[in-house]
């Protein structure tokens, strides 16, 4: 990975949790993101919408440096968390990922017990005390609205759970390390409507404590769940604004075309 960071490493006065400026990402010669500038509000839900291949998932993965592992990737521009650039040489990506957690499109619990899944993160970060781990596991599962359903079978395999339960388990697992930010990449796209509704309800509850960025290709979901919506197209951020405004009276005709279903 070849990276040229900008000089924006000092704190900016803003209530934004994450500040992105001039973010440009290339895979080899393909331009995936083009000079994206976006503020992610603290303890809000920001939704990223746009057609397939528009760069929203790439953008998401820049926020916790999951793109570092990709071959031939070049990242320019700045991404700051609480005023500190995350691509700074002094920043440890491992620690960053503890603060910025991620939930994926297809639920991916480890083939271990439910308890071991949720306890994995804290254990990796050095926690050994069994009592504390149990507390953290319970708290995380409660936050993910899964505790009542699994409290009697924490030792059973996580793979026995239904799809919706597995996804909530993955959310609990991410919450167990007490992140500041939760990134969600199409978290409900593989779930039925009831499971989806439960996830959306969960997001409503979580946003009082966590900053959430959610990528979704389901516009109605973005409309239901988010405070701010950002529309991406072909790697560029076309428009960002309060969700209500984006869906009743967007400024850019491209945005309006997309949200009304005029895909050309």
């Amino acid at each position, binding site marked *: 990975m070849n990276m040229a960071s900008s000089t924006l490493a000092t704190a900016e006065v803003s209530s934004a949790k994450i500040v992105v400026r001039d973010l440009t990402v290339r895979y080899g010669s393909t331009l995936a993101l083009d000079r994206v500038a976006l503020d992610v509000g603290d303890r809000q839900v920001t939704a990223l919408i746009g057609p397939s291949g528009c760069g929203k998932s790439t953008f998401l993965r820049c926020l916790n440096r999951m793109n570092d592992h990709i071959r031939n990737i070049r990242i320019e521009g700045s991404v700051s968390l609480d005023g500190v650039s995350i691509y700074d040489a002094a920043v440890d990506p491992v620690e960053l990922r503890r603060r910025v957690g991620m939930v994926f499109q297809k639920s991916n619990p480890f083939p271990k017990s439910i308890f071991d899944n949720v306890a994995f993160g804290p254990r990796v970060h050095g926690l050994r005390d069994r009592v504390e781990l149990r507390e953290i596991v319970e708290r995380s599962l409660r936050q993910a609205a899964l505790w009542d359903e699994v409290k009697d079978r924490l030792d059973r395999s996580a793979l026995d759970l239904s799809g919706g339960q597995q996804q909530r388990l993955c959310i609990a697992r991410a919450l167990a390390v007490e992140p500041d930010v939760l990134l969600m990449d199409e978290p409900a796209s593989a779930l039925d409507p009831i499971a989806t509704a439960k996830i959306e309800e969960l997001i409503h509850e979580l946003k009082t404590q966590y900053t959430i960025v959610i990528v979704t290709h389901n516009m109605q979901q973005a409309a239901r769940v988010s405070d701010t919506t950002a529309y991406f197209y072909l790697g560029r951020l076309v428009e960002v604004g309060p969700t209500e405004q984006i869906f*009743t009276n967007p400024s850019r005709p491209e945005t309006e075309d997309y949200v009304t279903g*005029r*895909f050309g």
Partner: protein
Amino acid sequence: MRLHTDRTYELQLEKLRSSVLEMGGLVEDQIAQAMRALTTRDRDLAQATIARDHMVNRLDVEIDDLAIKLLALHQPAARDLRLITTALKVTTDLERIGDLAEHIAERAQELAVELPIKPTIDLPRMADLARGMLHRSLDAFVREDEKLALSVCSADDTIDQLHEQLFCDLISFMADDPRTVSRAMRLLFVSKYLERVGDHATNIAEMVIFMVKGRSIRHLDRPPRDL
């Protein structure tokens, strides 16, 4: 402008627009017909106008049904959402205008059997103004022309003034000759109806501005100079 990827949806939105126009054209004609019945003292024409009101109501119901269906099935957003909610509100105003035309026709029937009391030149002028406002607001709707809509809002004052003037005239008329009271009152009602038509046309124009610009200017004290 791009079309919806879903062509059926596109066609239905088009049908919504054209139905609103159809209803608008119909009530415009109802006003004209009722006024003609009034000035020519034609009871049959008045009766025909009254009978035709049911067509206005039928269109109102059809448009409502279509709008609700589109809301339920297509989750419209942005301009489409504004179009549909505008259509819903505009038909209310149009339906009321239709009722007002019916009332004018009823007054025409009543006045036709009595002696005329004064040349009713003022009322046709008011009617022309009101119909003009209605016509322009519907034009603005189909052309999505917010400037045209704004001009309608400004014209409302003129009609209000005409009504005031007619009110004073008729009051003095009645004071001079008490035998004309019932006829003068009926004419006053017609004036009131026409003033209400102007108000409804203004409502429609305000909704058109909301539809086009996404901002509501309803219930402001004065219409804005520009948008």
